[in-house]
Each structure stands twice: as structure tokens, then as C-alpha cells.
């Protein structure tokens, strides 16, 4: 039996993806954005097909038309809201309310689309989450968390992950998720402590760096000087966020995957906060300095690190997963006619 687990491998290459990216960007511009749906399919296929587990790769089956439909819906809602909020704020708010109400519905559709269109060794993934669950987890709990000053946020986060993972399947085999809310609270609490620490350090640092400038600015009542100090503090804040976001992301990814199973098979994730921080900050700076040309290299680099930090710990034969029966298939989202994808990252 396997005891060391099966590492996920990612074989995408920056230079190769850069060529795909730039050619598709040109085609997107030339077609006034319409080709972007085709470009997205190519991008998804490139990343899926270069992701390997146990010497087999994943695949993506989404169709450009479904993606185009989803984009039109999203752009329509966004435009309707933005136009109305400026000219008829009340109607704008009504539209926002409608968007909030249909969002869980769209999310379920989108999860179904994404999972159903992902396959491994010829078997499709699937999503069986109910609309009721989606309304509970994506509308009711976030609103409740808002009213409890975000005290419910870690619990909500846990419920959302549980809803997503408990309702996912690979063929007939169900995923399950068993992390407790306490573990989410711990990560949120530690992130908050880091935030306070970083804030205090930044405050002290800013005091020493800008002390002279602030006094001078106050004496001369120099607005411009205050503006530069403001920009300085803002940059320090961004640096702090660049530090905290990788910490939070890595802890959450590890928690989620270490508590997810596929049938009896377990997963292990050991994403490092420092490594993730280094990759995100260097990606960020290189993207800025290359005016965005580093983006495809950055995407490949990030995908490689995040994917390769996940391992599967098989509890038995990997060859015996079965495809969903035709009956289950419908429930999992193969009703292609009404499918569309919404670009929302959760």
C-alpha cells in the first residue's frame, strides 16, 4: 500500500504559457473581448492538463459559449447596478438587493458547472449542493455575521467550506469535510493577532520614519507633505496586507485539505506562509516592473507551489473509482442546456 502519499505535480511552464497568454490576449482585443471566453477555456485546459496525480492528468471541459453566457449575465448585473446607483440610487439599491438574492442560485449553478467540467482519468467531478443550503450559507450566514460584527465570520467560512466539500463528488465517490468551527476561529484569531502586531510595528516604524516630516508638515501646514506621508502609510499598509494574506490563505488551505476526504482517501496540504509570501510579493513586484508581462509566469509559479503542496493519501486502490450513474449525473449538473459559469472566486 502507499504510505508516503501521492504528490500532485504541476508541469506548466512560464515561457510556454506566456505565448498562449499573449496570443489569446491579442485575439481577445481584436474581437473586442468576445474571444476571452475561448481564451479562458484554453487557460483552464492548460492548467488542468498540466496538473498530475498518480501519473494521470486532470482535464477541463467547459465550453466557451457557456462562459460567454455567464459573463454577459455578470456584466449585465454589474452595469445595471453601476448606471442606476449614479442616476436613480433607489433603483440601484433595489438591483443590488436582487443581485444579493439571486447570487446563491448563481453560485450553485457555477459550482455545478465548474466541477462537472473537471475530470480526472475520464471521470467527471460533480456538485450536489442544494439551493436551500446555498441560501443558508451564502446569504443568511454572511448577513448574520455582518450583524454580529463579524464574530460569526469564521463559523460562516467553515459552513461554506463544509457545504462546498460535503457536496462535491468524484464520479460516485463523495468528498467529505470534518474540520470544526474552532479550528477556523483559531486561524482568524491568530491572523488578527498578527494584524495587531503588524499594526503596532507599522505605527512605531511610521513614527520614526515620518516623525520629522509630520512635525515639519504641521508647522508649515503643508498639505502636500501630508499627502506624501499619507501615501507612505498607505504603502506600508499594503505591505502588511501582503504579509497577512499569504499567512491566512496558507493556513486556511491547509486546514481545509487536511480535513477533506474522498471516500476513505485523505489529503495532506502543507503550504508554507513564508514561501507563499515570498512568491506573492515577488510576483507582485515583477508584474508591476514588467508592466504586467510577468503575469503568466506569476500564474504558473503560484499554481505550481499551491498545487504541489497538496498530497493525496490513498487508503486503497486508486483504479476502482466508478463513474456516476446516468441518474446521478443529472443531479450533478450535466444539464448542459442551462449551464453557465460565473467568475466568482470563493
Amino acid at each position: 500500500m502507499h504510505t508516503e502519499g501521492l504528490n500532485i505535480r504541476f508541469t506548466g511552464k512560464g515561457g510556454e504559457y506566456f505565448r498562449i497568454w499573449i496570443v489569446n490576449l491579442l485575439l481577445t482585443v481584436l474581437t473586442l473581448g468576445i474571444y476571452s471566453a475561448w481564451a479562458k477555456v484554453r487557460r483552464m485546459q492548460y492548467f488542468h492538463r498540466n496538473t498530475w496525480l498518480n501519473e494521470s492528468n486532470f482535464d477541463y471541459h467547459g465550453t466557451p459559449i457557456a462562459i460567454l453566457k455567464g459573463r454577459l449575465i455578470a456584466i449585465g448585473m454589474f452595469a445595471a447596478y453601476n448606471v442606476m446607483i449614479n442616476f436613480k440610487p433607489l433603483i440601484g439599491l433595489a438591483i443590488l438587493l436582487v443581485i444579493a438574492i439571486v447570487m446563491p442560485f448563481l453560485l450553485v449553478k457555477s459550482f455545478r458547472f465548474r466541477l462537472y467540467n473537471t475530470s480526472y482519468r475520464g471521470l467527471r467531478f460533480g456538485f450536489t449542493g442544494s439551493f436551500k443550503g446555498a441560501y443558508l450559507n451564502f446569504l443568511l450566514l454572511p448577513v448574520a455575521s455582518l450583524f454580529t460584527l463579524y464574530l460569526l465570520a469564521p463559523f460562516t467560512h467553515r459552513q461554506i467550506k463544509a457545504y462546498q466539500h460535503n457536496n462535491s463528488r468524484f464520479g460516485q465517490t463523495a468528498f467529505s469535510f470534518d474540520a470544526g468551527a474552532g479550528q477556523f476561529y483559531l486561524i482568524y484569531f491568530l491572523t488578527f493577532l498578527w494584524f495587531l502586531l503588524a499594526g503596532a510595528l507599522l505605527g512605531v516604524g511610521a513614527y520614526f520614519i515620518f516623525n520629522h516630516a509630520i512635525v515639519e508638515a504641521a508647522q508649515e501646514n503643508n498639505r502636500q507633505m501630508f499627502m506624501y506621508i499619507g501615501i507612505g502609510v498607505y504603502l506600508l499598509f499594503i505591505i502588511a496586507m501582503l504579509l497577512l494574506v499569504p499567512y491566512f490563505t496558507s493556513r486556511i488551505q491547509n486546514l481545509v485539505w487536511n480535513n477533506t476526504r474522498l471516500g476513505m482517501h485523505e489529503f495532506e496540504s502543507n503550504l508554507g506562509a513564508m514561501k507563499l509570501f515570498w512568491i506573492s510579493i515577488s510576483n507582485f513586484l515583477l508584474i508591476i516592473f514588467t508592466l504586467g508581462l510577468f503575469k503568466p509566469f506569476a500564474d504558473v509559479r503560484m499554481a505550481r507551489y499551491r498545487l504541489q503542496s497538496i498530497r493525496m493519501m490513498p487508503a486503497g486502490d486508486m483504479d476502482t473509482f466508478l463513474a456516476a450513474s446516468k441518474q446521478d449525473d443529472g443531479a450533478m449538473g450535466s444539464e448542459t442546456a442551462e449551464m453557465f459559469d460565473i467568475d466568482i472566486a470563493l
Partner: protein
Amino acid sequence: MTSVSAQYYDGNNTRRHAVTLTFAQGWLQVRGEEISRDESLNTASISEKLGSAPRLIHFNDGAHCEISDHASLETLLTEAGHQPLSLVSRMESHWRVALASLLLLLAGAVAAYLWGLPRVAELAAQRIPYSTAHQIDEQALQTFDHGLMQPSKLPITRQQQLQQEFEKLRRGYSLPEYPLQFRASPEIGANAFALPGGTIVITDEIILLAKSDEEILAVLAHELGHVSERHALRNLLQGSIVALALTWYVGDISNLLATAPTLLLQARYTRNFERSADAFAAHMLQAKGMDAAKLATLLDRLETSHRGKNRKGSKLDEWLELLSSHPATEERVKNIRQIKPE
């Protein structure tokens, strides 16, 4: 005859079968230990090549083959009379095409910025009524009054007198009829400017710098030129479009930073805007029987007063000055003096 090694999956379970593919007698033949099927390449769907990622051949019953040996597969497809690579796949595989795409995109971006953007902003500005854009003015004035500017220290009678002369100057033109806004601002110094909705703000400092009311009216005529051609609104629209494009382009976390460069990009009016506002002012002043050269006189004096002020400015100010597209005053003065009465 080429044979290609591949992995075969039947679509019902995750078992992997090693197979070889050959093309013979018009059929794609899939052969492995337990697998033997003949498929038509016309009904099978062959995925496009994406870099060195494996290609897949899907059959109608849900089974598929994964092929990593690209060269052999391409030979096999050619033998079968199929185009082995799609046009986009071929484009994606050449660095020369990638470089050409990059250059085309850059050229397109430059052209859009230099020609497309001003044109789009102009067309959009023409469709926005003054009354709509006026809301921006009110907000801007509120912001200014929270520190950058103070109420004017000019006597009310002087303000009323200038207000009347301003209205006389504007009479007969289809321009919005918002009252002139008087403000004191040591920080901005001697200046007058038009806001996107057509409101004109004038500082005490420039009124005191002017040697005659005619000079003040000349400046106001110049600002009315900006109003008439919607320069401030056009600048604002251009800036917003650039900010939007940058946010989209840079994306993700970095969109926090995306708005900063636009502050620099849209810092000042372009020379063209200044030149056309000057021309508008010259014609307006002539039409009212005034001396257009007064604008040039005041511009000269402004330039001297700004130079004196800048000498004690910080290094950063000088650097910002370099970045701005501030029109050369000398050239403007020369141009105004050349405008002859009709």
C-alpha cells in the same frame, strides 16, 4: 505507419490502460491488453495542442486517450489526412508570433491612449449635460473648502462687480450660467480653473496679481474656453477610463495601486486644450471689444510669480513639474499675440 503510445480510460472507472494508436484502413485503431477498438477520426474529438500538455482524443461513449508524445501524434494525424495543429496552437508555439502579438498589443495600447481615448472622452462629454456634470463641481468645491481653499477675503462689493463683468462677458454664448466662485488659497496661489460641470473658480491671489480688470476677464475668457469645450470633463473621463483599464489590467490585490499612476497621467491639460482655450478667449475678448493681449500679459506675470515660488519648492515638486504636461507659457503668449482681430 506511425504508432503512438497512449493511456486509455473507458470513462466508467479510473483504471488506466496502456494502448498504442495507429491509423490503418481509414480507422484509428486503439490496441491494448484488454482494449481493442476502431474509431473514426471524424467522430472522435481531438483536443487542440496547448504547449506540452497532453492531448486528448475523446470517443462518443465517454472513453478517451491521453497522449504525451506530441511528435508522433502529429505524424499520425497528418497520415490520416487531418490538420495536426489548429491555427491558434501553431501561433502559440512560436516565440516570433508571441513577440509580434506583444508589439501589436503595445502599438494598439499607445494608439488607443493617444487617439482613441481623447476621442471617446470627447464624444462622451458632449452627451453629458452641464447640469449632470454640475454635481461633480459641487462635490469638488466641498472637498476644496475642507482645507485647500478658504472663503474669499475680497470685499463683497468687489466680488459683485467682477461677477457682473463676468456675466457681461458670457452673455450671448451658450454657456452654463453658474456664478463665479471666489476663493482664497495661499496653497494654490494665483490661479483660475474650470470644473467639469462648468463652474469657474478664481483665487484672490490672481485677482490681486492682475493689474487691471481686463486681465482678469481675459483669464475668465480663457476658462470659459475650457468650459465651452468641456476640457475638465474630458480630462476626468480620460482619467477614469485609464484607471478602469489599469485596474482591469493589473488586477487582483494590486488594484489598490492602480489609481496612483492615473494621477500623474492626467495631471494637467494638454497643450492642445490650452491652445484652444486661448483661441476661444481671444475671439471672445475681441467680440466684446477688449484686448486679447491682456491674457498674454497676465500669463507672463503668472509665469514670473510661479518661478519665484518654485525656487523654494521641494525636490519632489520639481520632479512632479517635470512629469506634468504643463504647456510652455512662452509659446502660448506668442500664439495669443499673433491672433489678429477678424
